[in-house]
């Protein structure tokens, strides 16, 4: 049990300690720290081989947040162990390679911290038994790969690639979260073993397809399936070890892993095949086509990866044992040869200073060792016998061919599998022959030669695996069987051999190679593929359009509302009040004209009200500010009189005093303010303002009357009247309320006043002296 935690968390812990260790052993040697971490993790994985390759999986759970089905659970079966094995194993090689690859002024410590962080996340992802925990690690790989891709962030391209990768993959990630939450809520669990038990229930559920689609969006975006594939080529801006690690064997396979993981839960229904196999197929063909059109070696490899991932996903989409088996095998093989190819490209880039296929040629003379490696990688990729790629591709052909039996339209799968493979064969040949054959290239940025042993070691090892598995495939049998059993939840017991006899798959391979050779040797045919983009509007162009335009659009949208003109803000608030409250009032029939009985009043009250209203309107009407203030003063007096009429002497006093002080304040401030400019308001603005004013005024009147009609019959005020004298010792109940019953309000009130005072003081005193200060002599 412990070793599971060990495997997952060792890289994290080592990553976190990197800055500290770097201080001790020096930046130059921090790479060794990474290698040690990876080795420790790899050792842990090996120690778990018994579960991964045996019959009984390991399933450990640490409770975390049961409400959300969150358990820190780990599930080690053939599938997850295979992935963990690849991740940690290749991780060791990558760390080793990077130790030689990096050079100043790159910050080494940060690189290895990111790399270990990524490795840990990836291990957590594949080992977790819980869908939500898987997603958590999934997002961690997103974050860490974001940091890795943007490692050379001083270059525009690196930032672009990193941003693109995180944005595109997190679209899927978020969808996945949605799907996982819904799935957890309807089933009550997020544990894969539990979910598998409930597969029938899930497949019956009305939300089956939404959940599947949401989860698959995650898988497709991570595994760069069309149309999400766009991020992967730009992610090649990362240092080559990163590309080799992330984009050959680990991160991009997370999607494949997820599909394999949920295979037993979802694969029973047709939607599965329709969705997954088709997307895989499209991606495979498109990816290979793009790879063929590229001249940058890394770009070729990137699209090649896209294509290969499509191939695997297509096979998983078949939802049968053969597809699962083919995928499992191809995952291994692809990791080996593609990882190696990336490292080789890294070497080429490192030694020649360029990755442009049109500038490179004839490197076999100067870099013979590298050439051998490249040869193995390219031929494995092309699916030539004796290399491992051939074997797994053949299995996929077989699986695809079998689909014809399921439904006749599914003949598209074998047909297009061949088409894709032809393209793959062609670009693989390009990789090797264009770079290593032909005239020896002149004018390269650097003088090429074979790299140091350290850099050759990792690709060399992978090359060995490629060849050995290609020749002696039974070595991989246990791995593949265990993984297949895990994917299909059925015992799997296959033999892997080079020769199956003259099966349809073999003929498909023959056709592939034959047409491939024709295609590669006929330059004219290649030219056709190169020159004309089949459609103008590519997904990439859409992304590039969308990225700045969402900002521009947001700016425009916000600019419309956030006009920085406060009158509109007021109108929004008023509008919201009037609409919400008004709607309820009208709905419930509270909206009526003033009833006659409510209008009963003394004559003097009518006259006073008239004066009040006149004064109120005056505040708005007068043009001179002083006149406005005077009118406001009158309003204050009228309010005072109103308070008297309503038997509120304290209020009348307060209002009077406040009125005077307010008038003085206004006059004081008028002095400092500029003359009111004669702002010509258009008639429509005036009408608008009047309409808004009238509407709100009427609304408040109606609201007040409606509430008054339903006024309380008893209130707490009676208590105050009853007890003010006996219990609080005062006859002025208002004052008693202020200083006794509700002292805290009064305390708050004077605090407000105190702050206002201090605030004004600070405001006036702290300001920079106003340049155009009025001549103080006046």
């Amino acid at each position: 049990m412990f070793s599971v935690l060990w495997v997952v968390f060792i890289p994290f812990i080592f990553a976190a300690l990197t800055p500290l260790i770097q201080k001790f052993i020096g930046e130059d040697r921090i790479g060794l720290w990474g290698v040690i971490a990876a080795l420790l993790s790899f050792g842990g994985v090996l120690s778990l081989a018994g579960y991964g390759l045996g019959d009984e999986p390991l399933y450990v759970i640490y409770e975390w947040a049961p409400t959300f089905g969150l358990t820190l659970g780990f599930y080690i079966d053939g599938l997850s162990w295979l992935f963990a094995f690849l991740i940690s194993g290749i991780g060791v090689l990558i760390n080793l390679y990077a130790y030689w690859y990096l050079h100043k002024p790159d910050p080494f410590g940060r690189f290895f911290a990111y790399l270990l962080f990524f490795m840990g996340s990836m291990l957590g992802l594949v080992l977790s038994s819980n869908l939500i925990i898987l997603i958590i690690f999934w997002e961690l790989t997103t974050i860490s790969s974001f940091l890795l891709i943007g490692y050379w962030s001083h270059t525009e391209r690196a930032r672009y690639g990193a941003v693109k990768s995180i944005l595109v993959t997190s679209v899927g990630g978020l969808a996945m979260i949605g799907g996982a939450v819904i799935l957890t809520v309807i089933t009550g669990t997020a544990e894969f073993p539990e979910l598998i038990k409930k597969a029938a229930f899930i497949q019956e559920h009305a939300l089956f397809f939404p959940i599947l689609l949401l989860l698959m969006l995650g898988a497709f975006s991570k595994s760069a399936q069309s149309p999400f594939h766009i991020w992967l080529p730009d992610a090649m801006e990362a240092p080559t070890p990163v590309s080799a690690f992330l984009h050959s064997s680990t991160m991009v396979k997370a999607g494949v892993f997820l599909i394999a993981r949920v295979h037993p839960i979802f694969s029973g229904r047709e939607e599965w095949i329709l969705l997954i196999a088709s997307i895989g197929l499209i991606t495979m063909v498109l990816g290979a086509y793009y790879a063929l059109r590229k001249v940058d070696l890394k770009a070729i490899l990137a699209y090649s990866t896209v294509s290969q991932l499509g191939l695997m996903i297509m096979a998983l989409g078949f939802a049968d044992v053969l597809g699962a088996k083919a995928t499992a095998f191809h995952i291994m093989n692809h990791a080996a040869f593609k990882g190696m190819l990336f490292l080789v490209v890294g070497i080429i880039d490192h030694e020649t200073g360029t990755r442009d296929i049109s500038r490179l040629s004839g490197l076999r003379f100067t870099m013979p060792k590298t050439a051998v490696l490249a040869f193995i990688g390219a031929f494995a990729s092309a699916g030539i016998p004796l290399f491992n790629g051939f074997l797994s591709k053949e299995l996929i052909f077989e699986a695809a061919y079998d689909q014809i039996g399921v439904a006749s339209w599914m003949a598209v799968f074998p047909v297009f599998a061949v088409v894709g493979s032809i393209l793959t064969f062609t670009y693989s040949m390009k990789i090797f022959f264009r770079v290593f054959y032909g005239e020896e290239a002149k004018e390269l940025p650097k003088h090429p030669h074979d790299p140091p042993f350290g850099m050759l070691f990792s690709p060399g090892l992978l090359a060995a695996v490629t060849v050995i598995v290609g020749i002696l495939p039974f070595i991989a049998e246990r791995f593949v069987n265990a993984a297949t059993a895990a994917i299909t939840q059925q015992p799997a017991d296959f033999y892997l051999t080079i020769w199956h006899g003259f099966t349809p798959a073999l003929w498909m391979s023959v056709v592939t190679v034959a047409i491939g050779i024709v295609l590669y040797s006929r330059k004219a045919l290649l030219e056709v593929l190169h020159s004309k983009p089949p459609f103008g509007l590519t997904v990439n162009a859409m992304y590039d359009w969308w990225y700045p335009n969402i900002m521009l659009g947001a700016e425009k949208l916000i600019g419309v509302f956030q006009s920085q003109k406060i009158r509109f803000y007021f109108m929004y608030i008023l509008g919201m009040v009037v609409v919400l409250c008004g709607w309820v009032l009208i709905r419930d029939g509270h909206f009526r004209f003033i009833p006659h009985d409510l209008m009963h009043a003394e004559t003097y009250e009518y006259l006073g009200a008239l004066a009040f209203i006149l004064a109120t309107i005056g505040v708005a009407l007068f043009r001179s500010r002083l006149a406005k203030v005077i009118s406001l003063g009158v309003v204050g007096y009228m309010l005072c009189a109103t308070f008297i009429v309503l038997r509120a002497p304290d209020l009348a006093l307060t209002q009077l005093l406040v009125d005077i002080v307010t008038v003085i304040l206004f006059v004081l401030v008028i002095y400092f303010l500029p003359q009111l400019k004669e702002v010509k308001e258009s008639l429509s603005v005036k009408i608008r303002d009047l309409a808004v004013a009238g509407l709100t005024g009427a609304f408040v009147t109606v609201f007040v009357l409606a509430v008054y009609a339903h006024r309380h019959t008893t209130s707490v005020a009676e208590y105050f009247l009853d007890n003010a004298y006996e219990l609080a010792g005062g006859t002025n109940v208002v004052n008693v309320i202020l200083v006794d019953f509700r002292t805290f309000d009064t305390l708050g009130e004077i605090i407000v006043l105190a702050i206002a005072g201090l605030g004004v003081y600070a405001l006036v005193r702290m300001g920079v002296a106003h340049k155009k200060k009025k001549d103080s002599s006046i």
Partner: protein
Amino acid sequence: MNLQEIIVAFFLLVGIFFIITGTVGLLRLPDFYNRIHAPTKATTLGVSSTILGAVIHFYGFPPADGFKELLAILFIFLTAPVGAHMLAKAAYHSKIDLWKDTIVDERAGKRVIGEEKMPSEEKLEKEEEERTPE
């Protein structure tokens, strides 16, 4: 209707009479300097007799109590002339013209009131320009 009521009524009527003349004067008189005489009337005699009437109403005649109320009269007599004076001075200062039929202006040509010079004449003039309501 007893004597006290009669006295109260008398004072109230006198009060309201002067108050209303004050208002009428405020409306009718031709220029600011004439108009300002009107409120003086309302404040002095009008308000005093109103208050007196009220005091008698509440406390009898002669009032045995209600000194506080009477204090209001004192306050008015203290403050009213100052307000009127300040306002008139300000008006004169801001060059508000005397009525065309004013018979004499012995201060003409000596417009400067007080020690200091006029503040910003333009400013006040502008204020004047704007005084017509919309």
